């Protein structure tokens, strides 16, 4: 026992030299907080590009052929790059690289990630992957237009935009991203497992850390499948192998492939692709639990079940992947299996939703901006989750597959919902990250316009899907089964999308203005219990905790405990000074 306690405590003996030069402090920084901000800014930057791409698509769909700079080729490039950037380069990077980096050491009471140098390399490899990805806009033929799922054979055959260079750069960029993620992810998992402060048992950790932790494990186990499929597709493209390519005629020419299996790619891709949904969702689940608990001044309802639900969802997410492939052709028994596992996921997910709602029940709710976003998330997530039950069933999925119903479903559940949490989390931790308060009024405007605006975008899409409007089409043309009103609805959706995008200016104005001239923030403006609010400096300095690491005596949710003068008891308050709240680290 004592041998490894000595290792965990060794930073008492190591002197912390703060990096002095600007370059070492802000550019080649090994401080997890600086790396988190680098990750965050880069991710939001590419996210804005992807937002712009989605507006291009909406312009074409709402007002077909009005804009000459959008042609069928560029439309497919916009679709592909929008999807890939949003899912991987924005959400994965922002939740794990951004919030994971910032919150894990602070919430666990560590001075930094366990291997800061590797953590720094992780960011620079991520930046490299972003540069490679964005470079594909400027190469001959442009970015790939294969759709974000990159299905072969079309992804690498002539006729798909970007077949010259775009697809190559996309695959290389993904491989570099996976290397970057692995370097970061190993750090996050090891830090959570091995570098917590005294008293911080796993069952005392805030749910934010739990969500990020489980999501990172999913990433470490799911990204290998994407790496392998990327390598095999690169071989098919450049060496003429036939892993994914069957004997096929391409524009009247035999490209020389024989005997490969396109379905194999789909299996590999979705073995990554489905856990990826939860890589994005689980950190959002965790963070939203903390936001709800803090701003409702109540302990999270059913903490232990919340943890086990995260673990159960993480495990189940590896055995549902083929529900993305019902229309690809598979044995009915497999369809039955994957439909069953898919619907079983609804159980732990529903536990989480009930627990969020029950956390609000009779709470002392403060409708501050982060809380608004957290409650907004519950709405959009229930909405997107319920449509998931439709699509999880084979017979209902068949007619709805590849329609706007699917687009509406996944944008609700893994587009809007996580983004609302991202905003909520940024507002919530903004005072700690910058030391300044944001503008509450602007924040509320931002929330209401974004929240209602996204409903205006995605609710009509469900209806379009039921009417049979296919996704990924550049133009509908003269389609008999679509009434005129479908086009009117599409135009309305486009206007809503432009409105929501414009609304985001409020967010950036708020952030930049508040960072410069916002009110100085209290170290713990929300009266929260968790460790990141108890740092000696705000924003926390290099090494986070000053000379002594914190010691934790209770779980993260001692809010409104009877018999204590404040309505919160920080995790560091010893039992002699405050009533012992409920603590799941200990058997009662």
């Amino acid at each position, binding site marked *: 026992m004592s041998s490894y306690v000595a290792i965990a405590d060794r930073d008492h003996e190591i002197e912390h030299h703060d990096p002095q030069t600007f370059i070492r402090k802000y550019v080649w920084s090994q401080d997890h907080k600086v790396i988190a901000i680098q990750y965050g800014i880069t991710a939001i930057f590419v996210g804005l590009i992807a937002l712009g791409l989605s507006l291009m698509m909406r312009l074409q769909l709402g007002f077909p052929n009005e804009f000459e700079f959008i042609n069928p080729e560029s439309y497919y490039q916009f679709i592909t790059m929008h999807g890939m950037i949003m899912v991987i380069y924005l959400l994965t990077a922002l939740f794990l690289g951004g919030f994971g980096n910032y919150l894990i050491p602070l919430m666990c009471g560590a001075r930094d990630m366990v291997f800061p140098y590797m953590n720094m390399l992780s960011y620079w490899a991520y930046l490299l992957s972003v540069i490679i990805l964005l470079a594909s806009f400027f190469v001959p033929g442009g970015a790939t237009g294969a759709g974000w799922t990159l299905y072969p054979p079309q992804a690498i055959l002539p006729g798909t935009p970007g077949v010259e260079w775009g697809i190559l750069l996309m695959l290389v960029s993904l491989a570099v991203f996976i290397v970057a993620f692995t370097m970061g992810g190993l750090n996050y998992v090891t830090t959570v497992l091995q570098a917590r402060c005294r*008293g*911080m*048992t796993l069952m005392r950790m805030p749910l934010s850390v739990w969500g990020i932790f489980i999501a990172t494990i999913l990433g470490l*186990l*799911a*990204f290998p499948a994407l790496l392998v499929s990327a*390598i095999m597709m690169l071989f098919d493209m450049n060496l003429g192998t036939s892993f994914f390519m069957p004997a096929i005629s391409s524009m009247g020419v035999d490209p020389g492939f*024989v005997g490969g299996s396109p379905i194999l790619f789909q299996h*590999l891709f979705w073995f990554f692709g489905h856990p990826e949904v939860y890589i994005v969702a689980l950190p959002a689940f965790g963070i939203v639990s903390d936001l709800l608990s803090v701003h409702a001044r109540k302990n999270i309802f059913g903490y232990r079940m919340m943890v086990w639900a995260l673990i159960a969802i993480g495990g189940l997410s590896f055995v549902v992947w083929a529900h993305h492939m019902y229309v690809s052709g598979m044995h009915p028994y497999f369809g039955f299996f994957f439909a069953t596992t898919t619907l079983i996921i609804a159980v732990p997910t529903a536990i989480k939703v009930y627990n969020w709602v029950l956390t609000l029940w009779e709470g002392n709710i403060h409708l501050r901006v982060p809380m608004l976003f957290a409650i907004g998330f519950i709405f959009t997530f229930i909405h997107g989750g319920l449509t998931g039950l439709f699509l999880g069933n084979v017979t209902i999925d068949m007619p709805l597959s590849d329609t706007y119903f699917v687009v509406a479903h996944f944008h609700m559940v893994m587009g809007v919902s996580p983004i609302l949490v991202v905003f909520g989390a940024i507002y919530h931790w903004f005072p700690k990250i910058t030391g300044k308060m944001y503008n509450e009024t602007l924040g509320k405007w931002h929330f209401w316009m974004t929240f209602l605006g996204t409903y205006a975008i995605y609710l009509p899409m469900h209806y379009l899907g039921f009417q049979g409007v296919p996704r990924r089409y550049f133009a509908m043309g003269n389609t008999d089964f679509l009434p005129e009103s479908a086009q009117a609805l599409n135009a309305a959706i486009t206007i809503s999308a432009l409105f929501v995008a414009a609304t985001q200016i409020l967010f950036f104005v708020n952030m930049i203005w508040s960072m410069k001239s916002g009110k100085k923030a209290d170290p713990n403006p929300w009266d929260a219990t968790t460790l990141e609010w108890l740092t000696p400096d705000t924003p926390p300095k290099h090494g986070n905790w000053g000379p002594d690491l914190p010691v934790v005596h209770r779980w993260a949710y001692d809010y409104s405990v009877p018999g204590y003068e404040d309505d919160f008891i920080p995790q560091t308050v010893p039992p002699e000074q405050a009533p012992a709240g409920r603590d799941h680290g200990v058997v009662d």
Partner: protein
Amino acid sequence: MSEAVLDTTVEPSGASGVSHDFSRDKQAFGVPWGKAMMWIFLLSDTFIFSCFLVAYMSVRLAATDAWPVPSEVFALSFGGEPIPLILIAIMTFILITSSGTMAMAVNMGYRKEKNKTFWLMFATAMLGVSFVSMQAFEWTKLIQEGVRPWENPFGAAQFGASFFMITGFHGMHVTVGVIYLLVIAFRVKRGYYERRGNNYEIVEITGLYWHFVDLVWVFIFAFFYLW
């Protein structure tokens, strides 16, 4: 963890005792950070090789042409009759032997025998080099016989594709392992770890990686050469 921090004097037993132990404060596993991280990395790497092998099996079952017979393709003849799988048998033997020398190096590291640790690690690296060299020889022979990633004279084109991809990816792991071993071995020799509290934990971490690469080879051997 007997500190008062846990606010408890009663340690649970049975299954809840296991989860209690695992979730205790500071560290879930009683190992240094580097070793925990290596285990997690290897878990992730296991998924990479599993995906490769499952993809290979799937491609092999889906291939439209007949699959070449491994015992004939991978045969060497020394003057007379071809001996099936002889080179692979030698390569496998060498790699397994290298796991033995690696295990001895770890042992010597814990006994703080600096020189023996160095020489055993060096021997492990040299066995690794000979494995990669023989693999290069095998590749050369097959390439001379006309095996390419996109075609081969023996049957299904996916044979060459899977062969070069999977053995290549494994060979890359061995090569990285050899470099890793040599770097650590020479640090051991220079007394780098002696000066840092005489702590040879890193030798075991290197060993974890090396044994993993060996274990993966056993699966590649079974699924590629014996099937």
